[in-house]
Structure formats: C-alpha cells, structure tokens
C-alpha cells in the first residue's frame, strides 16, 4: 500500500472504526477486504488505535483485539459514527448518481432519486459544490438497444447482433453471450463472448444496427471473463519482469489503473511504483504515450529501448513517400 500521509490515515481510521464497531467479530481477512487494505495494514492500524483515547487511563483508551483472527473494537463511542462526508466524497457519489439518472431507459430511476435526496440531505454543505461538476456520458445511444443489451446481461440471455464494422464497412451478424454493458470515454459498449469470433469482444452500441434478445441461455463459456479496459490485462507471476516506474504528478492515475506491487510517494509529488509483467510491449506503448510523465527507472535496458525508439521516431524521416 502507498505510504499515506498522517492526515489521510487519520480519515481512513475515522471511517474504519465505525465500520468495525458495527461488525464486531468480523474475520481479519474479511475486514481487510471490506476496508480495501492489506491484513498487515489493518493490524498496524489496530495497533495504533489501541494507543489512543480521550485520556490515557486504561479505561479511557480504545480497545482493539484481533488475537483470535477476529476483530473487536470497543470503548470507541466518541468516534462510533463516521465523520461527515468531505467535499470530494460527496461530489463523487452525487455526480455518479446524477450521471446514472441521465442513462436512457433506466428502470432504477426512482431508487436513484431517493438515494440522491437522502445523500444530499446527509452531506449538507459538502453537497453544494457537486452542482459544478457534471458528466455527460454520451449523446448517441438508442435507448432500445441499451435496454435490450442490459436485459441480456441481467437475465443471462443470448443476444443476436447486426453489427457494423466500420473498418471493413460491412454489416455482420453474430450471436453474443453478454457479460456487461459499459459506458466509457464517450461511448456505450457491450462486452461479451462472440460465437462468430470465438472470443471476448467489445461492441460499440452506436454501431449496432439491430439487437434481439434470444430465447436461449447466454452464459459465457466457463473460465471466460471480461477483459480489463486499458492496454492489456496480465495476471502477474513471480517469473515476470519486475519494472519500476516513476510517475510525475500528471500520471499518478497509472498506479490506480494497473495492478501494481508497491507504490511510494516522493516528496516532490511524484510516485514510484513497481509492477510485474510478462510482456513489455504494452508498457513501452504506455510510456511513449505519456510523453515524459512516466519514466522507467528499472530495468535500465527497458528505459534505453524506449528512449531509442523515441529517438528513432524523431530522426529525419528517411522513408520516401510517393
């Protein structure tokens, strides 16, 4: 886990205590998972908690016990309720809900509006700035197509698609076992197992010319899962290459986006991360795309190779055209 600042850790602890108080006896691993931290981090947090109190007499200190692999937190009445939502926290949820509200044909509209009303009331003044951030997911999606695609996902039904492939400028017919519907980067996509391609494919909904929900089970083949959205997904193993990258402030998102082994924040606002990968092609592309915001620290030859490729691309072009 990243080295976090003292104040970030404090807000995390103030959220963690009420969560644990309401889940007395929860297993250590399950608690760590629910709190989004490692078991080691959770143990270190609990170690810190029981040193704290509204006074330093034993009966004034917070009690924390996890000896038997189950977590108990006591004598924490003063902070047994979470701190009010901060501005960033309120804004993410409110903007997220309002974005959902704009999705055409969503049947959960009523639940979204109720959640939004309660959330805004609870957030108080922290909710106010949310009005200044808005997300327009996309303009062009046929509500009917979107609704049918969702139906397929929810009910595990096979879909039949008439799909336009712009590269070849042709319409194709295919049966797809749907996995999920995603809105990303201005478009809606259906991801699923395509029987024609015999692989996981992503279909842009604005290129779907026709979509029918078939009366057939649409569970994808065993062991098939959605692809990670991004460069490429890899499941790291010990034999993979260990790469250390330095991310400048503009590229910190990279550490949230790819599975990293370790991260540490530097005083100058940059972040050093390590990750394992069997294939460096995607990594080279990432570094090249980031225009200097991502720097390969090690292995050295990877950094040199990338620099050499950048330099070759910048050399006067020798290739004759026309």
């Amino acid at each position: 886990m990243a080295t976090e600042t003292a104040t970030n850790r404090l807000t995390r602890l103030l959220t963690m205590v009420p969560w644990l108080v309401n889940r007395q006896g929860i297993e250590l691993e399950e608690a760590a998972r629910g709190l989004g931290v490692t078991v080691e981090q959770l143990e270190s947090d609990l170690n810190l908690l029981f040193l704290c109190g509204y006074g330093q007499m034993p009966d004034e200190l917070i009690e924390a016990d996890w000896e038997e692999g189950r977590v108990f937190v006591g004598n924490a009445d003063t902070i047994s309720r979470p701190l009010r939502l901060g501005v960033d926290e309120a804004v993410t949820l409110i903007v997220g809900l309002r974005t959902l509200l704009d999705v055409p044909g969503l049947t959960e509209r009523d639940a979204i509006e109720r959640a939004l009303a309660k959330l805004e009331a609870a957030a108080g003044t922290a909710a106010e700035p949310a009005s200044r951030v808005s997300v327009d997911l996309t303009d062009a999606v046929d509500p009917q197509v979107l609704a049918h695609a969702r139906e397929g996902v929810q009910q595990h039904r096979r879909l039949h698609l008439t799909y336009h492939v712009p590269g070849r400028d042709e319409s194709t017919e295919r049966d797809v076992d749907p996995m999920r519907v995603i809105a990303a980067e201005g478009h809606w996509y259906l991801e699923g197992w395509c029987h024609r391609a015999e692989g996981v494919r992503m279909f842009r909904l604005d290129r779907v010319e026709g979509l029918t929900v078939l009366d057939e089970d649409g569970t994808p083949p065993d062991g098939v899962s959605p692809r990670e959205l991004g460069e490429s997904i890899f499941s790291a193993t010990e034999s993979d290459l260990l790469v250390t990258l330095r991310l400048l402030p503009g590229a910190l998102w990279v550490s949230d986006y790819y599975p990293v082994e370790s991260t540490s924040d530097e005083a100058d606002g940059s972040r050093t991360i390590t990750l394992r990968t069997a294939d460096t092609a995607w990594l080279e592309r990432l570094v090249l795309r980031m225009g200097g915001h991502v720097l390969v620290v090690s292995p050295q030859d990877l950094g040199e190779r990338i620099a050499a490729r950048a330099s070759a691309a910048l050399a006067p072009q020798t290739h004759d055209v026309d």
Partner: protein
Amino acid sequence: MSAAQGPAAKTERLLNLVLVLLYTRRPLAKAQIRGLVPQYGETASTEAFDRMFERDKDELRALGVPLVTEEIDVLHEDEPGYRIHQRDYALPDIEFEPDELAVLGLASRSWAQASMAGPAAQALRKLRASDVERDEGALIGIEPRLRTTEPAFEAVKDAVLSRTPITFGYRRPERAEAQVRTVQPWSLVQWHGRWYLAGHDLDRDDTRVFRLSRIDGTVRTAGRPGAFEVPADFEARVLVERSAPSGETRVARLLVRPGAGHSLRRRATRTSDTDGSWSELSIDFHDVDAFAAEVAGHADDVQVLEPSELLERVQSHLRGVLAAHEAGA
C-alpha cells in the same frame, strides 16, 4: 524524549486530539488539552506545543473536522476553549433501502479507475458503516466508467469545488506556444469522454471553455478559496457543447511498418501499400491530443504524413519521453 516522530506518531496525536475534543462536554483550554494528549505533553516548550497545536487545528479543519473555538466561561474572556460537537462531526443517521444502496454502489464504482477512486470508496464505506452487508443481488447491468486521465484534473477539480481562481498554460490547436490564462473556474464538465473547464477568463473578461488535456504544466492558484460566486443561471454544459462540436472529424495519413500498428490498421478507412512495403493508412480522428498520444505509443513503427499539427504533437510527446529518460540516466 519525544516519541512524536514520523507519520504514525502524528496520526496518533491527531486521533487523540479528536477523541479528547469530542469527549469533552465543555470547551477545553489549551493547557488542558496539553495535559490530555500525551504527544503534546512531551513537547519541549509551550512555544513548541503552541505551534504544533495551531498546525494540527488547521489540518483537522481542512479534513472537515468541525473543531470550534468557544468561550470557556465569562471569567476567562481572553482564553478561548476548543471542542468538537458530536452533532456537527457525525454523519447524520440515514437508512438506505437495498435498491438505493445498489445504485450508490454503482455510483461509487464508476470512479474506481479514476483519480477520485479513494474518496468514492470511502464515501460508500461511511454510508454503509452501520449497514449489514447484503448481497447486491439487484444487478443493474451497466457500468459507467469515469476516467480522469488528464494531468490537470486534480488541481482543476479542487479549484472548481473550492471556488479558487487559477492560472495555467494553455495550448490552442492553432498555436504552438502555450499561453498563460487566469480563470475563475466555474464548472467542470465531462462531455464525449473528455473533461472541460468552463469559467470566467479574467484577462479576456469573458466566459471561456478549456479542454483539460490542453492545459500545459502546473495549475497554480491565483487567489483565495471562495473568491468568486458562480452565476446561478450558468449552464456549463450548453457552453461546452457549443464550443466543442463533436462532429469535427479530421483525416490523418500515416505510414505503418510492416507487421506493426494493428490497432491503427483496424481503424483505417483506406489502406494502400507503398514501395518500401510500409502501408499508408487514412484514419479519422476527433481529438488531436488523444490521437497524438496513441500514435506516439507506436514510436518508430509509425510516421505521420499529415496533418502537420498531428506530427508536431507526436514529436513533442516523444521529445518528452526522451528528455525524461535522458535526465534519469
């Protein structure tokens, strides 16, 4: 001597301070606080304690902890007291229905791959603190994915939320040099997958729209939080849509090395082979910045023939990569 070293000790000190100030029924004088928080007791002098306490107070307030100053009693008019009221501190008790929690979960997860993933997850954890974990059986079937890959996002977002004027370098597509702009940031809009800032440009004395991906370098604050009001009738989306027409498609001509650039080849609207067996591709693009980054990812496997703006952008990307690695070597 002092055990108050390092981030863990600071967290411990701040947590003790929060507990002490929440527990008390009356405002506490500084001397009392020093006696109750052990890390303060260990400070070498009253001055050192004062400085530390002042800083801690500010930091807690910045985190949203409602630490208030109140009169202790009429006899101690000059001596302020401190406390945190439970009613202002705690998230009000709210009960969410299962379907409401399901949509809240979805709203939170839509930020999972963005720079605001942390606050989004923490907010949900707070709302669900007293909630028994349920299986969110009500699968909604869609997943919005919000991205915040623009380097300027965090700084601009903070400025919009806190209403703080900012100044930054901004590249216009038709000009090579970045210009310095000073702006009251009114609103942040994601439209067609990209983030835009709408605000009042102080030098031009007019409302303007900025694409975050064109902000160059560091965003600096140019005033205090709350320095301006956003007009109530301001419609950021309308302004963004007007200034950023989506239909503007341009065509790039590229040369691609044999066997390379498959993702580009797939998107080409025209492909022809040249003598050297490199392929010449025509590709439609909307956003020159995004497309330049993609082309730069292929480095020497791709050459840009036109437009020249794309070529310049790709080269500036690659020069950045080169400079970063040469400096680090």
